[in-house]
């Protein structure tokens, strides 16, 4: 059975059907793309998968657990982590602390251990520091651990956001437009990073992206949304040659 199984998912806002009949099946270790025109409902789908919105209908099963309409807290613990289209870092916290917050439910200890600074506190903090530094190392930003997150240049903020998501040791990572605002070379670098994350951490990745070079170069399977409905599905080759996708999304090949 697939890691993530979504069937017939739908939601409407004030009478407007934002997403309907959305289905998705992501195997573990897979790189999966979700594309479509602006306003097609891709981020809405992400918001339902992460518990930010409660779907009106449909089911979301993660690794055998029904997470439909559950709280973000529950879903995070169940194993889904995400990044945001408009980077949402904890801006005034240090880079290291951003990653440590990501481990909130992975390396837990009670408030009083922290207040009393006992052995539990010291051991857990040490463990977190080590794990966080290792993660930052993977993304090449370990030397910035002490910086305030908002001081990082844009590209590194994107990386840090992925680091923070990975800190919760998810089974499935959702990336919302990870390449937005990056130039072609940075995008290529990001592509390698994403692939590395999948390989090193052995997790499934579902991503929304407009940069077709990026999507086509990395995703094994793609679903295309338009007006909240799936209009195409398949491997990159099939999808990019689909006339409906070209008409609605890619546009003619005139450049």
């Amino acid at each position, binding site marked *: 059975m697939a890691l993530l199984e979504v069937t017939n998912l739908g939601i409407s806002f004030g009478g407007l059907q934002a997403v309907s009949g959305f289905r998705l099946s992501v195997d573990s270790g897979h790189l999966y793309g979700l594309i479509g025109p602006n306003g097609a409902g891709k981020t809405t789908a992400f918001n339902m998968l992460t518990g930010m919105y409660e779907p009106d209908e449909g089911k979301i099963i993660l690794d055998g657990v029904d997470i439909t309409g559950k709280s973000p807290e529950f879903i995070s613990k169940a194993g889904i982590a995400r990044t945001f289209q408009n980077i949402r870092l904890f801006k005034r916290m240090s880079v290291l602390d951003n990653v440590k917050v990501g481990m909130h439910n992975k390396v837990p200890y009670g408030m009083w251990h922290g207040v009393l600074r006992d052995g539990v506190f010291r051991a857990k903090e040490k463990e977190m520091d080590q794990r966080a530094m290792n993660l930052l190392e993977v993304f090449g930003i370990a030397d910035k651990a002490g910086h305030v997150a908002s001081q990082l240049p844009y590209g590194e903020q994107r990386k840090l956001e992925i680091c923070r998501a990975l800190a919760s040791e998810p089974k499935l990572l959702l990336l919302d437009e990870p390449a937005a605002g990056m130039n072609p070379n*940075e995008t290529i670098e990001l592509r390698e990073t994403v692939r590395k994350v999948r390989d090193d951490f052995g997790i499934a990745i579902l991503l929304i992206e407009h940069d077709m070079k990026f999507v086509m170069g990395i995703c094994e399977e793609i679903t295309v949304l338009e007006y909240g409905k799936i209009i195409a599905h398949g491997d990159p080759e099939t999808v990019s040659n689909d006339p409906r996708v070209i008409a609605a*999304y890619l546009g003619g090949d005139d450049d």
Partner: protein
Amino acid sequence: MGELLKVENLNVYYGSIHAIKDLSLTVNEGEIVTMIGANGAGKTTTMHAISGLLKPRSGSITYDGHLISRMDAYKIVTLGLAQCPEGRRVFSGLTVHENLELGAYSRKDSKAAVEDDFNMVFELLPRLKERRNQLAGTLSGGEQQMLAMGRALMSKPRMLLLDEPSMGLSPLLVKEIFRTIKRVNENGVTVLLVEQNAKMALNIANRGYVIETGSITMEGKASDLADDPKVKQAYLGGAA
């Protein structure tokens, strides 16, 4: 074609960080000029300095004979230099029409002239006409981007600063937005464009500047830059 905008030896600091170092560039009347470079190179900072959102430590910015480097942002707009900020900052609680009206806020000419410009903007950006009574917040990302541009055009600028107009747009809309920029330019508006999508930007621009860690490292005709192996390697994804 005279010089419309001239930036000379610009220096901008953030605290002790020297963000822009002795940067100089010129934009001639009627041109599309693009600035390309990596994230954090200082493109947006330069734009903010030109539009008056940031005060430079030293250097001068002259626009149409006025020294604008120490001028307040709203005064710069009244000189005909409009900015279309990145991130689609539209007034989401207002309709498309009201957003456009606000764009004409700084103008002192007649209602009829403003009405003419409504028509001009709707002609350039027909999608906005279809949606003129819709709240801006309910527009899709691409439409908001167009609205931001339309609003800037309503101030009847001689020059338009565009910061990453293609960001977060689908491939289809990216093409449309670049076509629109070209059309706006053909209507007589000078454009300074910052873009990550260097290929498309160089495609429509007359000239370009490459900016690296706060300084200009290369400049020239857009077509020459697009053919330059170093530019290809660094900004056009030439390696892939």
